[in-house]
């Protein structure tokens, strides 16, 4: 099991944070990659909700392929937390960990940081180090 990378988007599609632990294919263009990821998530989410018998539900929490798994959590305020892991983490409830990242990393070290301008890229060392140590402490790391 391994964790590859993390994305955090806000409701406008801005990538507030991208963090990488282990990504085998090197990124050509980070900004392109982030735009594609957001676009894909937006489409996937809306498609998934359309398929759902209950219109208030149906937001995907993860999908898994033969090489990786994508775990997804979104807040009612439109924040989107994404963790890409190895495919054998597919059955692990990583979404719960994404809600913890929301509460214990994003809210504590971005929202409550009076210097952070909401909607901008989070490049604060304290935030990134808390994110890093949290993810490293996960059983699926």
């Amino acid at each position: 099991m391994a964790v590859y990378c993390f994305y955090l988007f806000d409701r406008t599609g801005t990538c507030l944070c991208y963090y990488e632990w282990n990504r085998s294919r090197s990124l050509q263009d980070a900004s392109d990659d982030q735009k594609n990821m957001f676009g894909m998530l937006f489409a996937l989410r809306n498609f998934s909700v359309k398929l759902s018998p209950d219109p208030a539900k149906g937001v995907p929490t993860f999908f898994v392929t033969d090489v990786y798994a994508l775990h997804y959590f979104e807040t009612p305020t439109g924040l989107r937390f994404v963790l890409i892991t190895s495919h054998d983490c597919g059955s692990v409830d990583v979404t719960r960990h994404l809600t913890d990242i929301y509460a214990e990393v994003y809210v504590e070290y971005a929202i409550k940081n009076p210097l952070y301008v909401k909607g901008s890229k989070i490049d604060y060392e304290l935030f990134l180090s808390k994110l890093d140590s949290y993810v490293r402490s996960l059983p699926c790391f």
Partner: protein
Amino acid sequence: MSRPSLQTVGEAAFARCDRVSAELLALTYGTFVRQLLLDYEKVADVNAQLDAVGCNIGVRLVEDFLAKSKIAACNSFAHTADVIAKVAFKMFLGVTANVTSWSADRNTFSLLFDDNPLAEFTELPEQCPDLWYSNVLCGVIRGALEMLNMKVGCTFVRCKLRGHDTNEIRVSLHELLAEQPPQADD
């Protein structure tokens, strides 16, 4: 097994969070309001500034609220009203409010609350009868709900500091904001 009531959720969230004395908040807020009254000539501008400050607080506070209360998206405006009154008020101010006076189209409601930690040991200065002392709360609600895609109007209609029997905030849904798809390049 029934789901816990919103009241219970609010009380539990309040019990879990780190707290400070209401006095400290009241004194800080009161001193700030007095500063604004010195800075601005018109009381209407003070009310507007308190609303603006509240709005800036609301867009951040909503994330703290959602993360700590673990409340999922509300499926109706009525549910949103109950969550504000029973969970949010309790979690941040330690008091609960009541939701009343729904309009016929169900787009407007009132929040009634007797206890207001912001106004503890406060008297309105005589020369400011038009001041809505706790107007920051209107801004907070407005800012928070906009982050949840609800554009609302939020105003005080009754305030105990003005001699009314209770505090009342009227919240009106103007528009539901639709989520914008990502912009395509070129």
